[in-house]
C-alpha cells in the first residue's frame, strides 16, 4: 500500500536494497541508466518499511506510505 520512487539516475546498481527488502519485491529491472548501471524495479505489495531507503548508499530511494487507498504508481 506504499509508493516507492527510485531516482534512477542516482542508482549505482549495487542491489543492497534488493537484499534487505523483507518482502522480497525488488529485483533487477533489465534497464540501465545513463551511467550504465542496471536499475531496480518493484513488483508486489510494499509495506513502506523503508529498509531499502535506509540501506541505499546513494539516497536514490524515497518512500511514501499511503493511508487507505492504494496509490497508483508507474515504475
Amino acid at each position: 500500500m506504499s509508493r516507492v520512487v527510485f531516482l534512477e539516475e542516482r542508482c549505482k546498481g549495487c542491489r543492497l536494497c534488493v537484499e534487505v527488502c523483507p518482502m522480497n519485491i525488488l529485483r533487477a529491472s533489465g534497464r540501465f541508466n545513463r551511467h550504465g548501471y542496471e536499475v531496480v524495479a518493484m513488483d508486489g505489495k510494499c509495506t513502506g518499511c523503508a529498509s531499502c531507503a535506509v540501506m541505499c548508499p546513494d539516497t536514490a530511494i524515497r518512500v511514501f506510505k499511503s493511508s487507505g487507498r492504494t496509490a497508483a504508481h508507474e515504475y
Partner: protein
Amino acid sequence: MTYANNLHPQQGEKMVFDANPVLNERVTHYCPGCHHGIAHRLVSEVLHELGVADKTILVAAVGCSTFTYDYFNVDSVEAPHGRACAVATGVRRARPEAVVFTYQGDGDMAAIGMAESLHAANRGEKITTVFINNTVYGMTGGQMAPTTLIGQKTTTTRHGRNFSNEGGPIRLTEIMAGLQGVAYAARCALDSVKHVRKAKKAVRLAFDVQLDGLGFGFVELLAGCPTNWHMDPIAANKHIATDMIPIFPLGVFKDVKET
C-alpha cells in the same frame, strides 16, 4: 539535477523516507555498494536533527573521504593527510561556538594520523570524529591498513596479513575508550538495516557530547569496500557480519553521560 514532481507526497500519503537538506543532491563518486554514502547520510541527518548545520565546520581527511566536502552543505576545511584532528583542534579553539567534526578513513586516522588523532582525543578536544573502518586503503588501490584483518589479501600483503610480519588489526575504539579526554567512544557497523539504525544513534551521541562540552566524541563505523575486497556489495556486507564483527566487536565502549 531536477526530479519529477512525484517526489512530493500526494493526497493521503505520508513521507516515510526523504533526503535531508544537509546532504546535497550531487551523486557521490564512491563505488557501487560503498558504505561511505550511508555514513554521509547518517551524519547529515544528525546535523539536520540537531539544527546545527549552519554553524558546523567539517574537517575533511585524505582518502576516499577527501571529497566529503562536496556532499555536505556545511563549511569545510581540507586537512593534510592524517592531520584532520589537529586541524579540527585549531578550528574549534578559534571558533568555540562552532560544531566541528572530522570524517576520516582507517588509513588516514589509524596509520598516518595516529599521533594527531590520539593526542587530540587525549586532550579532550571538543570535536567529533567519524571513523570509517573498511580494513584497506581504498583510494590508493587496496593496500594494507593497520586495521586489515589477519589473513586478508591486499596489494601489499599478497599472501594475506601475517601477524609475525605485519602485526594485528588495531582496535582504535578500545584505545580511544582508555583515554581520559574521550567522552564517547562506540563502534557500529553499516552492514544491515538494524546496524545502520544503531549507528545513527551512536553518531548522534558522539555529537551530543561535543555540544555539551564534555570532550571528544568518537564513533567507528565498520564499512564495506567491495572494490578492494574483490567482492560484490552483498558479499561484502556478509563479510562484515561474519569476519569483521568478531574481530571488531560492536558496542559503546565509553560514555561519560552513562557513568
